[in-house]
């Protein structure tokens, strides 16, 4: 699980002050995480970029209202998750879902050039299994098991109770276990 980098000191204050450079630093620091969550949730690179841009635009607009109760990263994940779930729930997804194809390409584009065919197949299967999870469970798995957020942060980002987060995470893991049973080591 990747560790979430802490926001640079004073970044929130600089953002609140409307410093353009501070916003650029924010985007550079969190672009991959925001994009990754959107991509895992939507399964489309183009749509994920669109959502990620929308997330940062919202941050730019509303950073003045950010109280700082939660970590800046949690706030970003919360916005990203909300935008993704809203988009998934709405009928606005005009962009053709690349779905499995995009995720499978992602599996093939792993930097590990020495990966065997079997490893690639396993990676494709995992991506497919995650993509096929129900959205409410998928977002928990993405935030918790892939992005490495704590239960509290996931609960804060999704506006859920920690118990609900654990319950959804457990069901998601059990479902993945059953789907990937033949490929598990």
């Amino acid at each position, binding site marked *: *699980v*990747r560790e979430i980098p802490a926001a640079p000191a004073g970044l929130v204050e600089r953002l609140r002050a409307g410093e353009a450079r501070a*916003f*650029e630093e924010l*985007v*550079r620091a969190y*672009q*991959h995480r*925001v*994009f*990754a969550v959107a*991509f*895992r949730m939507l399964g489309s*690179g183009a749509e994920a*970029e669109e959502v*990620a*841009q929308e997330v*940062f*635009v919202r941050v*730019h607009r509303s950073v003045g209202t950010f109280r700082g109760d939660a970590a800046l990263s949690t706030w970003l994940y919360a916005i990203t998750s909300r935008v993704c779930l809203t988009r998934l729930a709405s009928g*606005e997804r*005009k962009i053709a879902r690349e779905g499995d194809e995009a995720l499978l390409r*992602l599996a093939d584009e*792993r*930097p*590990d050039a020495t990966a065997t065919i079997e490893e690639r197949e396993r*990676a494709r299967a*995992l991506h497919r299994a*995650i993509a096929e999870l129900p959205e409410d469970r998928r977002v928990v*798995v993405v935030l918790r*098991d*892939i992005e490495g957020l704590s239960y509290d942060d996931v609960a804060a980002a999704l506006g859920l109770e920690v118990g609900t987060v*654990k319950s959804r*995470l*457990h069901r998601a*893991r*059990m479902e*993945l*276990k059953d789907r*990937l*049973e033949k490929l*598990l*080591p």
Partner: protein
Amino acid sequence: MTCSEVRERFLDLEDGALAEDERRALDAHLATCASCREDLARYRATVAWLHTVEPVRAPVGFVDRVLGTVAPMPWYRRLARQLLFPLRVKLPVEATALVLVAIGVVYVFQRTPELQQAARVESLAPGPPSPPAETAPPPPAGPGTPGRAPSTDAPGRSPAAPDVASQTPAERGAGSSVSGPHGSAAERKSARAVESRDAVTPGRSDRRAADERATDAEAGRTPRDAPQSEALRRPGPPAPARSGEERAQSPSRSGADPSVESAAEAPRERSTAPLDAPPRSPGARAPAPMQDRAETSGRSTGEPRVERRAEAPARSTEAPSSEGRAEPGARPRATPFNAPPESPAPRTTAPSTAGKADARSPSTAAQPQVASKASIPDAVGRVSARDPASAESQIAVLAVRHGGRVVSRRAGPDGVVVEVRVPRDRYRALVEALGDLGRFTPEREAAALPPEVWLAIHFD
């Protein structure tokens, strides 16, 4: 602890969040249940696998695109973005804009007479009120002249040869209003609208008829009541009477019947003689107010159209008695307005019109070619030029340039009228070229143009 209870605690077990007693109970179950042990192993492997998922990276240039998005934009770009970017906003806005544009188009159309005039290609410019044409006194009765033979009327013509040009505009409108092969749907609709309007508003056509009579009078022609009786001079059996509505509803009989269009090539004959000559009038002329109305429905000039009727014998089967509905008190009509000219029946059943026709017979008998030219142009327009004389002189050049020719020139009641014949495929180009001479206003145009379009141009 059951297997199900054990599996429900896998997550807490992995997180180390189980209480001590729960942990002991779970371990005791796992020690005795191989299935749960294997399941726990797979669960742990799955979680471990999830933790090794490769991170996804944002595409190159993403930061620049984001910064470009949030950069201050001009107000118009912000406005456009707000209007167009969110789909839930864009769709209603665009739909509303579309509706507004449509309303605007309709409003402009209704407020712009020129547009309406252009749309109603078959309609005429409204004229001053005048007595109904049907009630106009017929010309003095004279010695009756039997209908002329078809051979003299249209020598060399083949009755079976289709010729759309031989149709009057009204007939063409009727023919094309529903199923005519020529003309667009809009033209057919326009023609149908004009015909129906004329059928129910006799005053309108009456005014036209009066205008035409005035034109004829100024031009030294006989009054325009000839069309009523021209049908009587045509060969062929008299056709059964049919109402104007029937004619309108069965256009195939007028527009598609080969015999109808076999009439003849009268336009070419007409083009060789002065148009203001009195129409050659045969003897029998049945009163046909509705026929006159139908003819005037597509006419704005005073040219008589007698021979057009005579040259379409088969059309006599169409709408002959439509006048009965529009003018119940009209003179007795025993013959369809398009009745064959050679039919003796009209003469015997319509003595009044026969006399009227006889009044013309001397001149028409002496000038057979003149009568064949008595018809209405396929299109009528008006040129308002600063120097009408100069514009008029350029008509011939334009006509030749577009493959046509000037067939006549005469002084009408409201100016000079130059008539041109031009191939249909060059007609539009000629009309556009007329705009160079001055302000050209199309006043009427047949729904289906013949191969050689007969265009009457009025010069103000």
